[in-house]
């Protein structure tokens, strides 16, 4: 694709008998947030590690800014930053010493990284903790420090593997603010996430399943691909709702959510009265029932179901 900074073509990795990643191809533009979504074992982390150049792919090619990652990993690494679920901080070093160490490994001149680190620490409200040992930071602060460390050499590509797992909501919001401002600076980002509200914030999403890419589109485009419609039932006992409706004609699947259940149907206008009737026949009290726009989570469950039925 023209202008892409990251290009993966036919990427494959095998672990024993399992194809962890199977013929994956995609391209990411500068200033784009590209999301990798899929169940555990779909190959998200393996893909990330191959992009980062810490794992060799068995097949396929990756280029970063035109550099072949397989052939010249050390050169490509200068432009890339990789932030895993748990950023590897030295807990017996201070915040500043950690930043300095990573800056040194990228051979960033002292004046430059000091300036940059100061700005980033201010942006993430970490300045008062500069002299604190990394081991004494909260989980959210550790991730923000990790992000600072991985950005200190101004990478053009940022790889984030479930970076906000186990991080409090406030830190997550600050985290995303930093990502948005990076997008404004033209940094390309590949992010995998287990939080589907975060997936919705991405510019494009790739749905992975068993190492293969099932769909790849913008969140709106993906939603348009979902066949049928979504009916939301608010009820005190979601499990009973599921049991009562999942065998009805036209019901493709039921997803339990906090307030009740999401029922995936072929035609909302036709199935809504049928479901309401079935629920009242079963004696299940509902507070609300109606058609809703599908969430990303509904979307993936529905798309994966299609995939499974096709297989």
């Amino acid at each position, binding site marked *: 694709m023209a202008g892409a900074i990251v290009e993966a073509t036919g990427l494959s990795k095998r672990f024993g008998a399992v194809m962890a990643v199977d013929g994956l191809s995609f391209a990411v533009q500068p200033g784009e947030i590209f999301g990798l979504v899929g169940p555990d074992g779909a190959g998200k982390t393996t893909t990330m590690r191959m992009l*980062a*150049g*810490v*794992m*060799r792919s068995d097949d396929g090619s990756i280029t970063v800014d035109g550099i072949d990652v397989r052939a010249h990993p*050390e050169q490509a*690494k*200068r432009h*890339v*930053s*990789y932030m*895993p679920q*748990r*950023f*590897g*901080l*030295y*807990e*017996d*070093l201070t915040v500043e*010493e950690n930043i300095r*160490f*990573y800056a*040194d*490994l*990228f*051979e960033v001149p002292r004046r430059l990284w000091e300036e940059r680190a100061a700005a980033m620490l201010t942006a993430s409200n970490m300045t008062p903790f500069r002299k604190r040992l990394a081991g004494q930071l909260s989980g959210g602060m550790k991730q923000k420090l990790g992000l600072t460390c991985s950005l200190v050499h101004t990478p053009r590509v940022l790889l984030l593997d479930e970076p906000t797992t186990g991080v409090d909501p406030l830190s997550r919001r600050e985290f995303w603010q930093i990502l948005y401002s990076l997008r404004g600076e033209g940094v390309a980002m590949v992010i995998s996430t287990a939080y589907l509200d975060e997936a919705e914030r991405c510019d494009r999403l790739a749905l992975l399943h068993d190492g293969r890419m099932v769909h790849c589109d913008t969140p709106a485009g993906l939603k348009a691909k979902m066949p049928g419609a979504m009916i939301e039932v608010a009820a005190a006992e979601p499990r009973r709702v599921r049991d009562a409706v999942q065998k009805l004609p036209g019901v493709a699947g039921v997803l339990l959510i906090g307030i009740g259940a999401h029922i995936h149907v072929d035609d909302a206008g036709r199935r809504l009265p049928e479901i309401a009737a079935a629920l009242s026949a079963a004696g299940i009290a509902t507070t609300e029932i109606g058609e809703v726009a599908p969430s990303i989570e509904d979307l993936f469950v529905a798309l994966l179901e299609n995939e499974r039925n096709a297989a």
Partner: protein
Amino acid sequence: MFGRIFHLLVKEFLQMKRDKSARFRLLVPPVIQMLLFGYAATFEVFNVSTAILDLDRSQESRALTDAFVHSSRFRIAVPAASERDVRDAVERSDVQVGIVIPAGFAELLKKGRTSPVQALVDGTNSNTALIALGYVGQIAGSFGQDYARNLAERTGRALGRPMVSVGLEERYWYNPNLNSRWFFVPGVIGTLALITIVNLTAFAIVREREVGTLEQILVTPLRPVEFIIGKTLPFFLIGLLEVSIVAGFGMAWFHVPFRGNPLVLLLGTCLFLLAALAIGLLISTVCTTQQQAFSSNFFVLNPMFILSGFSFPIPSMPQALQWLTYADPLRYYLVIIRATFLKGVGLDALWPQMLALAAIALGLLTVAVLRFRKSLD
């Protein structure tokens, strides 16, 4: 490249400076172990707990009893009134040696005949038993010789055998007093260095793997080989420091002489430390947690210690095990360190050991680096 290794070194020393307990662990236990080994590890046998039963109750039997009592080798632990007492004492492990002087002992001596003395030895610890039995024989033998000479003089050679003896002049080279401390102290230096360096290296690298920092710094332009150099160089220096401290302490405290060329020992130490670093690195490639590293180290280090010739003589081992000892770097280092300390020989005598150590270090390092690269996948 050198810049990145330097930055890694700076970080390592910063972490070390911060870890106060590590400094303590590096200096105090080795010195304590040196003291323990220096005093406890000895082949000599003193104060063997003994029961003596004198059934003869003669002047002669009392003289023999005194000879045992007054030697520093035996300590009379249990008074015995009957043969049963002696047997019981050995069975209960109250004594290791039971000596029975039978009735009629003096009678036979006076006639100039051989008079038997019974010794019961607890053979559980075969080494001590053998040495103790040797002392019993020595004391009884010299008592017999003295008595015979005396008897011959008193009876105008009518009784008592004329003494013919071969005089053996003994010269023990390098360690004239057969001080087993001189033998053990240099060995302890090598063993301690091996244990410290293998443990430090394996734990430090496994810790980086466990915490996730290893993967994190390998996505930087730092190459795996640069990581290995930056990570192991500090331990190499620590190894040299520890060998110097423990060796200096052993010389000052136990007065073990150093007769050789320090540079020869330095060369041998460097080669040996490289082999130890490679072993630690190899262990770190097969372990993902520090706990695994702990048990792996134990399984690797213990056989290396046993096969090294530290205390069990290699020529007495079965042939197959003797071949195995050739792969043990400690084996060669012990020869080098003992020879430089006690014999004062140089490279002209020690080149085979140096060559073997260099080959082992090179081989292990190659395998370790290759395995380390592979373990990153």
